[in-house]
């Protein structure tokens, strides 16, 4: 649904994008990650046809952004980061105007606006002036605007920036609900959000793609497997046994307490292999294993590692 190949963008002497490549399949949601100034907003602006690429192939819904810009814009719902909405319009009036501008026929526009308003939970504020709305509500108006003409592709630039935790959760759930019906490309600084709303991520670092893969693959590639082993051992030096295993690092060891259970926190480069080696070693040493549990891998760690890797290159 979205195809980006060898995309370059220069602003004078500054090269904002240095040949990035990625694709977004139809019906999926992809997170665009990167530090400030990495090139996320530039990429989104190119995809939404607000600015043109210096070179490269960019296609949205099968249409190249440079040569079929109007067709691309008909197929996208774009929400810029600052949600610049006309303050002197009422929510309903603004959305009706936007629906008409996006080609929704006059008769259908009322229904389209009603649907968008109810989808983002703005029914009680439909007659409010945009300028009196809180930042969170304005974000929702921006989201309703992106949805009002039912576009197949949604491009959302920092949709939850400036929102409080409860508003953030609502927007997150909304984006999650949009998957399947729409192809969603969303950028955010809040990584747990991307973790829960997207299937894949594209990490941009200083104008290049540092990683482009599924979140799970990314986590496995860039983070270590941290796991906890709970066991029972009598007169066995388990700590030494664990230290003997190559490719496994013992982070913490807690000797048996009143319940007779000892704990070890271990870190292995490869999840399955490390855990298997630990279990094998302990069982061979006569240790009775009570439990092996893996700790949640964080996208944040994976993101930072991916960036570090890109910088080291």
């Amino acid at each position: 649904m979205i195809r980006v190949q060898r995309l370059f963008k220069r602003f004078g002497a500054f090269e904002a994008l240095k040949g990035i490549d990625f694709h977004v399949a139809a019906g999926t949601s992809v997170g665009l990650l990167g530090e400030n100034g990495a090139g996320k907003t530039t990429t989104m602006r190119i995809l939404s046809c607000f600015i043109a690429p210096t070179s490269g192939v960019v296609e949205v819904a099968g249409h190249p952004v440079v040569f079929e810009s109007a067709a691309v814009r008909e197929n996208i719902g774009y929400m810029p980061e600052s949600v610049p909405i006309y303050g002197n319009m009422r929510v309903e009036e603004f959305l009706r105007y936007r629906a008409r501008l996006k080609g929704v026929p006059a008769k259908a526009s009322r229904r389209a606006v009603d649907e968008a308003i109810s989808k983002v939970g703005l029914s009680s504020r439909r007659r409010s002036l945009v300028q009196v709305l809180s930042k969170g509500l304005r974000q929702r108006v921006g989201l309703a605007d992106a949805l009002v003409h039912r576009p197949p592709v949604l491009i959302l630039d920092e949709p939850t920036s400036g929102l409080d935790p409860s508003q953030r959760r609502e927007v997150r759930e909304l984006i999650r609900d949009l998957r399947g019906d729409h192809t969603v490309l969303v950028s955010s600084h809040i990584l747990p959000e991307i973790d829960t709303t997207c299937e894949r991520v594209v990490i941009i670092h200083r104008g290049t793609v540092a990683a482009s893969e599924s979140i799970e693959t990314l986590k496995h590639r860039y983070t270590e497997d941290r796991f906890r082993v709970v066991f029972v051992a009598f007169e066995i030096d388990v700590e030494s046994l664990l230290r003997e295993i190559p490719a496994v690092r013992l982070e913490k060891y807690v000797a048996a307490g009143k319940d007779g259970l000892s704990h070890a926190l271990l870190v292995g480069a490869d999840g399955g292999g490390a855990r298997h080696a630990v279990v094998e070693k302990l069982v061979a040493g006569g240790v009775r294993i009570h439990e092996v549990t893996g700790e949640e891998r964080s996208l944040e760690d994976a993101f930072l590692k991916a960036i570090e890797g890109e910088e080291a290159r």
Partner: protein
Amino acid sequence: MTRFLVLLRRELGATFQSFGFWALLALVAGYTAFFYSQSLQARGFDMDYALIDIRNWLFILTVIITPLLTMRLFAEEKRSGSLELLMTAPVSDAQVVMAKFGAAAIELLVFLAPIWLLHGLLALFFASTPDWGRLTAVTVGMCGAGFVFLALGTLASALTSIQLWAALLGALLNTCLTSLGVLRNLFPVESPLHRVFAYISLDLHLRSALTGIIDLRDVVLQVTFVALVLFWTIRVVELRKWK
């Protein structure tokens, strides 16, 4: 066409909902009425002579009002960031420019309307038959000049994100264009430059209209000016993509 009309309606809505517009209109209409009544008294209530006086005021009014009508068109959209939202909707740059210019042109007509109203009321009051043809010619001339000024103002607004700068630049361009007729006097009558300045001088091309004659040459010049300046404006708006 539908999208153009949607944009036009939104532009007009934004203006007609603003207090500033109505306050300015009231001020202008009030002063025009005052000026007209003074002129009528001085001319012994001869409406045709009074019209000769008021046409100069209308021209000054057009030069002053047009930058105020156009200053926010693009500058405000740029300042607030809403240009990004507007230009990522499926509308062409030309549609946006034409709709904004069209809205400003309608607003200018609203400013010129009070003179017709005054003329009509006074005709009714004095039970006389004014020279409607001359008033029409004057209005057409004012609209022609006004549309050129509006096009320049639209261009000025597209060049900046600060409304004040847009207004000042618009006023400066208007003044320059109006002064071209004066520049011709710097050159001998037989000089080609004298003729060039005379051809492109907006004030010289208003003279026929002010005397009650609609000269097609004037109209062609004004339409050409408007088309050329709006074309540049579209290019300036497009420039954001490539900068």
